[in-house]
């Protein structure tokens, strides 16, 4: 298969940023494709894991942030477990996610950033995840209010969905951790 890459931009592509963020060495990849063979969502993406690495090696730029794999990835880590060179590809995907969000280029159909924000907001607020609030905020943000609605009554009756927010966590400590993370971002790290 031929991989076509847009002419290398003056910035030199995403390779360096990804390698630094994920602490990986992508030149170790020799395209054995074990990662792509084991990937449970390879059939739902035009660029499976080995191809994303190849594109990065060849100097791909921001256009790579549109690849479906970034937001279809299940973090199952099968690619990492089977890589003969121990390349942490899930960390590469996480790095691409973070870069896409920073550049405001997260694919619009990728609701994962919205869900992650809703989840982390409740953790920041209570020190623990408050599932009902996470789901409510996610639903409001995505506009898909009807999804899974039929499941809620029985989950509430069975006590499988806590109604009240979690208590007992050291929420102050968690706020500090989040503040430090925000400070690091502010310093451009």
């Amino acid at each position, binding site marked *: 298969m031929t991989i076509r890459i847009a002419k290398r931009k003056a910035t030199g592509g995403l390779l360096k940023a990804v390698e630094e963020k994920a602490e990986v060495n992508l030149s170790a990849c020799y395209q054995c494709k074990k990662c792509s063979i084991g990937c*449970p969502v390879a059939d739902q993406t035009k660029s499976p894991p080995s191809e994303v690495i190849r594109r990065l090696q060849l100097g791909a730029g921001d256009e790579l942030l549109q690849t479906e794999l970034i937001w279809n990835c299940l973090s199952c880590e099968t690619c990492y477990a089977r890589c003969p060179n121990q390349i942490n590809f899930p960390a590469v995907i996480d790095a691409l996610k973070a870069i896409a969000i920073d550049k405001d280029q997260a694919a619009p159909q990728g609701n994962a950033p919205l*869900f992650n924000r809703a989840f982390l907001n409740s953790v920041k607020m209570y020190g623990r995840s408050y599932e009902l609030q996470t789901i409510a905020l996610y639903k409001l943000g995505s506009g898909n209010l009807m999804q899974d609605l039929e499941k809620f009554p029985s989950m509430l009756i069975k006590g499988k969905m806590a109604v009240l927010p979690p208590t007992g966590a050291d929420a102050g400590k968690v706020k500090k951790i989040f503040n*430090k993370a925000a400070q690091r971002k502010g310093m451009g790290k």
Partner: protein
Amino acid sequence: MKYAYFPGCSAHSTARDMHDSCLAVTKALGIELQEIDGWTCCGASAAHQTDRELAVALASANLLLAQKMGLDMVVNCAACYNRSKVANAEVQHSPALRQSVADSLGQAYDGAVPVRHFVEVLVKDYGLARLRKQITHSFRGVKIAAYYGCYLVRPPDAAGFDDPENPSILESLIDVVGGTNVEWSGKVDCCGGMQNLTRTEITVRRSAAVIEMAQAAGAECIVVACPMCQTSLDLRQTDMATLLGKQYNMPVIYITQLLGLALGISPQALGIDKLVVSPATVLQAIKAG
């Protein structure tokens, strides 16, 4: 046998049955789990997808609390187990992350607190021979598929749980309760749980594929040790019917529920009523002695 227990956020919500059955089993066996006071969220999948340093700091905060208790940390949620083990590995291997964790938490952490999954405690610390003596009820004749999913076994270096491609620790427990382990190749496949709310169709298709493999191997129920796997495989069966036109009726039970039943604990105390797909056929097959 005393451990620092990290329940994880879902223990008080969607995985209450996992938590309740774990505590019921520890009570019956005399294993002491001391809940970590003031424990906080491990960051789960949302943090590592957002900010790697934030993710490692959130998980390390609890590991530091366990360190102060001077005990190994026991986790029953496979996702929290995974994040804690990965945090240990990352802190050990990356000086930059170690520095950032120290900066976030105001104290240094070296990644040295042992993290154990509750299943490891049962099999490796309590021991199968000792466990066998406590069994009062048997699942003789019930064909069971042991399902591990991702978080327990991957990434192999950090998890160090069992053979990453062909684990057998759950099977050893199923063997103790008298069940018949089916041979199948889906036990470390992904259930798609991470996209459960975001890209639901991926989850529904992945989980259906797992159930189909277990069914083809003759399994009458699937036994899990992860709340994300349990939710995807169990709760999504109605969506499999809608989307794929397949009605599986496959009970998906926590290993601690299975073990609890074999120890003679009441289904109520094990949260059996919280399962979506009724495990009535499995319960009917239990034999005393």
